[in-house]
């Protein structure tokens, strides 16, 4: 492949083209290409076993691809070795801790492994411990950390050498809600500082709030924009279900009632529709109810709101049933392995 073809666009910090990797008969990654822009956050989304972790291992330079190559700021990770690895921060999905080392020692050891001078290492450790809120546990052996605390230490460890590219493999796993929000903040701050971030996660709603772009991985094949369905579900909450049904029938709008568990609603998280819904009847409940309607886009949505309000329907909430990522994900042929 001509080097020119890989020459990164001005801001591309990491470029990978047509990577593939098999483990014996298992084709973990078949054809994955990815390009991470400096200063942006990219999501890596795909079902279990679709090859996300394997792809990240190839990006970090730990695993040799069967074909294709990875360049970080113009350095080939396969041949540049340490020089390329110096630019990458990686947080694996599963990792251990050095049981008898304290959190601070873990960070300082890794700073040393990246050849930071001891004084700088100390300072980085202190800063990062504060960033991930482990100051209280700084001198506790990492053995005693809880799962979420270990995860936070792992994040700090991945950032200790101020990398230009940060690859996070399911960083939110095991984090409490506040830590998730803080993680989002940390990731956004990194991007603000010009770092290219790739985050793999199954928490799509959460991911959506921090990413600028998304790469989908499906049976080892990557795609930037999976085809989204022409019609997308929107969720309508109304005070009077029967009245809404009557209105929708009059204007010829197809609706599905949620909580009935039929059709598209079956894919919906039950918690999402546990509104103040009273007893429901297939013919139309008299009390508050939630419905799904299929619309072609935001234009039609605005039209619907205007018409419904004008017709006196008591709308309480209205919005897309799923986030953009969720929608795209559900549009994929989501085969788990």
């Amino acid at each position, binding site marked *: 492949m001509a080097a020119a073809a890989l020459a990164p666009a001005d801001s591309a910090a990491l470029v990978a083209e047509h990577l593939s990797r098999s483990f014996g008969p298992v084709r973990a990654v078949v054809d994955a290409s990815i390009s991470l822009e400096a200063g942006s956050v990219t999501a890596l989304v795909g079902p279990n076993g679709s090859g996300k972790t394997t792809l990240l*291992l190839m990006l970090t330079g*730990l*695993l*040799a691809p069967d074909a294709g190559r990875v360049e970080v700021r113009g350095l080939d990770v396969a041949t540049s070795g340490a020089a390329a690895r110096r630019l990458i921060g990686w947080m694996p999905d599963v990792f251990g801790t050095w049981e008898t080392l304290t959190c601070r020692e873990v960070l300082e*050891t890794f700073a*040393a492994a990246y050849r930071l001078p001891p004084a700088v290492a100390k300072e980085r450790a202190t800063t990062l411990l504060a960033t991930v809120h482990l100051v209280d546990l700084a001198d506790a052996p990492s053995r005693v950390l809880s799962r979420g605390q270990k995860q936070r230490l792992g994040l700090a*460890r991945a950032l200790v050498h101020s990398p230009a590219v940060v690859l996070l493999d399911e960083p939110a796993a095991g984090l409490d809600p506040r830590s998730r929000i803080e993680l989002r903040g940390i990731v956004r701050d990194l991007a603000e500082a010009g770092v290219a971030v790739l985050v793999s996660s199954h928490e799509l709603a959460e991911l959506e709030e921090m990413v600028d772009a998304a790469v989908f991985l499906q049976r080892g094949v990557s795609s930037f924009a999976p085809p989204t369905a022409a019609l997308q579900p929107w969720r309508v909450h109304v005070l009077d279900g029967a009245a809404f049904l009557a209105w929708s029938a009059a204007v010829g709008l197809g609706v599905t009632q949620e909580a009935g568990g039929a059709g598209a609603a079956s894919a919906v998280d039950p918690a999402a529709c546990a509104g103040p819904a009273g007893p429901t009847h297939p013919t139309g409940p008299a009390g508050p109810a939630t419905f799904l309607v299929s619309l072609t886009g935001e234009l039609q949505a605005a039209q619907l709101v205007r018409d419904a309000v004008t017709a006196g329907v008591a709308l309480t909430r209205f919005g897309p049933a799923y986030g953009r990522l969720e929608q795209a994900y559900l549009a994929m042929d989501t085969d788990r392995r």
Partner: protein
Amino acid sequence: MSAWGVRTVAVLEVRQRIRSTRWKVALIAFFVVVGLIAWGVAAAVSGVGDSEWLSRQDAGRVLFGVVLMVVLFLGLLVSPTLSATSVNGDRAAGTLAVLQVTTLTPLDLAVGKLLAAWGAALAFLATSLPFLVWGAVLGRISPVRVVASVLTLAFVLAVVCAVGLALSASVARPAGSALLTYVVVAGVGVGTLIAFGLSAFFLQRTEVVQVYGVDVGGSGACSWSEREETQTHTEDTAWLLGLNPFVLVADVAAAPAPSLNGSDPLALMGAGVRFAQAGARDEIDECWLDDGGFGTSTPAGSAVWPWSIPVYAAAGAGSLWLAARRLRVPATTLPRGIRIA
């Protein structure tokens, strides 16, 4: 490889594996065991000493020799536990990949881990030094020989650590590599002796030899004659003995005087090797008239260490190279069923 990288890895290893009370307990236990053995030997030989056929000096040599062999034996048992799980154990614990992804090179990791394991083995050796020195002082053994023996012992332990490291980098499961390392240690420690012993059966040949003996029927004086003898050509397999770590250390320690006459265990081992090296002799001295002996003087032979130290060094260097190779990233092949992360 860089000094910085090696140091970082070694310090991490020491903190991670060795900073635990278990280790202090193990060191104390080692000290006590070696101490008890040394005391037992000292008590035994001084008891013999009363009967005045074992001088104070000889008693010291027995003490030194026994303690040296015991420390080598215990060192061979301890060393594999330090290194034989250090790569695949880290991989299983999920702490290896995050190190490989740093700027540390594979050789940094391999050498750092080796130094840490060897350092721990040396700590055990150090706890037994007082007893070695005790024996050496009593036995008036020259400091050069004491230092040479201890250095050889330390070198053997380094090689064992390197072999364990290579196996732990090559075998998927920590239990598997630990077991294999013990098999290797048993192979060189005991297997070489067994192989040498068994080989003797296959090296027997009936040959005509020159015998210098008393001509009983004739002149009554000693004269040369020919006779058919079944000879065992151990000289062909004596090199096997050189691979034995006990023989190697004893050989260095007993230099320059291996001898069958005396009680120094190291000298006895050295003499045994010399006889094996000499093997079958074409000329046999059976004349007791001249000197009253049957030629039991130890054959000259040659020291084994010039042969075994290069072999050990090659094994150690090869193991280190293999370990570094298996730690190389990007990894092309993985052990079956092993995930990097």
